């Protein structure tokens, strides 16, 4: 069995052999993993596959294994969020996307590693140790959905789910040379994903090709009455997979090519834009003057929301608990011991930004900037169909290289977080290599216009072979 297979190939293989054999083969690869991509491997995966074999299943993903980021609730599997504080917590309910996947017949292989509570861009803040980048085991896979991107790149799952609050799907997709989509805010129900910053995040798929992204979106997207921010867009994702960019207007926002960008990244992205031109699209430079404030706005909003979201982890009802002489002491000790440094930093900064006397100066101002950033996107996307830019200004960095310098690490979200402020869809696709490390192109579209985003990504894939390259170290 080939190590890297598309969903269509996996389904073919299931027909030839069985779901059980396919799942067993993936579990075998996972067992030999060099990347620490999974926090939990499901003990029920084989059993589920056997059931699919014996009872048959008509679902679009019958017997197809999938990896799930460890902040998305799956009944019976621990949901650690990469944190010590959720030790022993097993959700009694499935996330909406998990219900959808199970109905479609998918097999949950396991839960993947992540930055603690999705706070990071390198998967190094996980309580369970860092995940390695399959292209260079000394480098980070990106984050926070680093585990999900890495297992897909390493052939340990055909595809995976991550979550993207400020780039957490696209960043690891770019670093690991896979495809990752941050859907329009509201396209996928957040019910069951542990909130980091509710107003910014979406669950997003990661896969080895654009087609599988669309396959997965057709399963997980749609209205869910349990998420008041979810919307029924009625988008049919696979229908968008057309090899045609004729007359498509591409905008290139110069603000995304700022100081500190790696010259080979810049070159690869321009090559890609010229490739689109050769395929019949046109391009023009656009200006988005408020993008330079996006990072600051993003961090203030995300940390503020996080400071409130993470208040529930107090050791009272579930998860890790440190004993104390009274309730307040117990809560203090539990949180001191249970949260990692980066999480504490963000809770403190968020608490500060929301405090009386600072609320207007920071939080309110950040909201105003958010509106301006949104307006920049509206304006730019009124003139062009899509925006294209580097996903990450640089390729994957070394494990330990930036972790002591949070500000530098925050800066790596500079090109991804504006998209979350605006709520628009954005996909990262492999578009080149530098020193053997993948480079990602980011394609941004209008709200709920995933079809155009997917069409452009699909067309590029049809005419290039970056997505077929595999990391030699794990081959």
């Amino acid at each position: 069995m080939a190590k890297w297979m598309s969903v269509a190939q996996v389904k073919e293989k299931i027909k030839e052999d069985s779901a059980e054999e396919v799942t067993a083969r993936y579990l075998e690869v996972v067992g030999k993993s060099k990347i620490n991509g999974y926090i939990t491997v499901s003990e029920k995966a084989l059993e589920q596959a056997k059931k699919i074999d014996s009872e048959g299943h008509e679902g679009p993903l019958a017997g197809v294994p999938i990896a799930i980021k460890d902040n998305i609730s799956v009944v019976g599997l621990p949901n650690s969020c990469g944190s010590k504080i959720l030790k022993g917590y097993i959700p009694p309910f499935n996330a909406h996307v998990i219900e959808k996947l199970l109905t479609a017949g998918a097999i949950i292989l396991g839960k993947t590693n992540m930055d603690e509570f999705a706070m990071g861009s390198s998967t190094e803040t996980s309580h369970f140790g860092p995940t390695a980048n399959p292209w260079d085991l000394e480098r980070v896979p990106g984050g926070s959905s680093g585990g999900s991107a890495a297992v897909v790149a390493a052939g340990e799952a055909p595809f995976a789910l991550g979550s993207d609050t400020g780039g957490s799907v696209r960043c690891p997709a770019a670093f690991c040379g896979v495809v990752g989509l941050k859907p329009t805010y509201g396209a996928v129900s957040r019910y069951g994903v542990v909130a980091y910053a509710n107003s910014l995040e979406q669950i997003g798929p990661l896969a080895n090709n654009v087609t599988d992204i669309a396959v997965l979106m057709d399963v997980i997207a749609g209205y869910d009455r349990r998420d008041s921010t979810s919307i029924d867009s009625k988008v049919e994702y696979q229908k968008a997979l057309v090899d045609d960019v004729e007359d498509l207007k591409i905008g290139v926002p110069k603000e995304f090519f700022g100081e500190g960008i790696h010259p080979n990244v810049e070159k690869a992205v321009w090559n890609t834009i010229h490739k689109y031109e050769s395929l019949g699209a046109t391009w023009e430079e656009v200006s988005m003057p408020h993008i330079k404030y996006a990072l600051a706005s993003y961090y203030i909003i995300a940390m503020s929301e996080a400071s409130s979201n993470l208040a529930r982890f107090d050791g009272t009802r579930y998860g890790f608990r440190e004993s104390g002489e009274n309730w307040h002491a117990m809560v203090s000790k539990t949180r001191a011991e249970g949260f990692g440094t980066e999480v504490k930093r963000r809770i403190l900064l968020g608490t500060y930004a929301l405090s009386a006397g600072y609320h207007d100066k920071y939080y309110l101002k950040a909201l105003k900037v958010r509106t301006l950033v949104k307006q920049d996107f509206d304006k730019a996307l009124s003139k062009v169909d899509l925006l294209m830019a580097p996903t990450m200004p640089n390729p994957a960095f070394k494990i330990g290289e930036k972790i002591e310098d949070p500000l530098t690490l925050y800066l790596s979200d500079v090109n991804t977080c504006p998209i979350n402020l605006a709520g628009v869809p954005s996909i990262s696709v492999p578009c080149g290599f530098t020193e053997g490390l993948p480079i990602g192109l980011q394609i941004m579209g209008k709200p709920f216009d995933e079809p155009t985003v997917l069409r452009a990504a699909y067309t590029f894939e049809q005419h290039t072979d970056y997505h077929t390259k595999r990391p030699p170290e794990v081959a």
Partner: protein
Amino acid sequence: MVYENPDGIRIGLEIHVQLNKLKTKMFCGCSSDYHNAAPNTHTCPVCLGLPGALPVLNKKAVEAAIKVGLALEGEIAEETQFHRKNYFYPDLPKGFQVTQYDYPIVGKGKVVIEGEDGEHVVGITRAHMEEDPGKLVHIGSIEKSKGVLIDYNRSGMPLIETVTEPDMRSPKEARRFLDKFRNILEYLDVFDGNLEGAMRVDANVSVYWGTRVEIKNISSHKGVERALLYEIMRQKNVIRRGGKITQETRHFDEGRGVTLSMRTKEEAEDYRYFREPDLMPMRVADWVPAVKETLPELPDAKRARFIEQYSITDMHARALTSKIMLADFYEGVCAKGVDPKIAATWTADVFLGELNYRDLAISSYDGKKIGFIHTKDPEIENSFKVSDMVELVTHFAEGKISDRAAVEVIRSILDGEEDKTPSQIIEEKGLFKAEDNLVTKAVAETIAENEAAVQDYLGGAEKSLNFLVGQVMKKTKGTADAKTARELILKELKG
């Protein structure tokens, strides 16, 4: 007469009311009928605040809030939003409470109460929706309990918090406001005030138009009045001794009847409000016309109609409309064709008085009978039938029973004979008024049998007449009217 408010008292209230008549909680589908349930059996991922669970707003709670707003003559917001109020407490499973902040659903309104000097307007500042936290349970008393248990059955119950202007000028007015407010809520059928924890009040009060002090979390109307009486006395004493009132929050100790300092303004908590990102801002202006259609007749309107329709006094109408279930009961009685004035007297004066005397609170009315529970022990339940009141009023109107007998019938029914009809009770106890010829016969016999007493009376001993009347009453087993007996004896003797 104009009330001068000599001590410059200003009282404002913040009232938390549980919308406990709604079937489900504020943001999840859990049943709100948890009052007799085992702890933590009415919970789900949402109201337990499990990671990943999201709130979904209960539309009925919004409708109820609009109803309340309209009944308070309040402005209903065009658009409303929810915010998070962040603080740590074991009964708060998410570490924040979902509430409303700068976009409450109800804006300025008013309630007219019976004030110190007649009708008095109390301004409503705002009313907003929020969720109730869980409940801490101590084993035994707080002091002796070895641990604290948490029951999240209450967590996520829909609340409405109403804030008034500091328009009340005495503890009595505050109490009247609360009575009226509760009455309005019960008319709207969104609230059952008999359930535990259904209404909690924070009162702020100042004297001599000075600095206000807040008293937190008082659980009864009577408690509010007592807390305010104490607090006003305390503040006046502080000022008399040359001290100054500091802005602070105090706690009311129900047992000792005193208020105690909890925290000063400097220690005030910072709740770090921000908009709840999991709930979208909501346009409610379009809902208002439909909700308006469902508004019932409110207490003031009903009172005016009773006076008009049944020709009863304002005092009776006020008493009868002070509880929607009592008003419905009264109308149920009147619908059977009895004299509404007599029915009003027996319902508003006697029946209601006997209920209060027994600490019974009206808790239901189903068209046939009115039910009540003991205010201190809800296990004690009882009821009174419409048909019983109809029978009683009919007998009385026809002169078949005396005032005293009617009162006794009501008392008998309230004291455990609710299975018997008034006629049965009257029969058993021999309460029917004796017929006149029976009395005449008894008078004749008495005069014949008590020669000595007759002679005494005729000789000027007035006391002897009382003895003779007593003998007549004895012969008629008390069914004779004493006044009639006396008149008949005098007629016989004086010819």
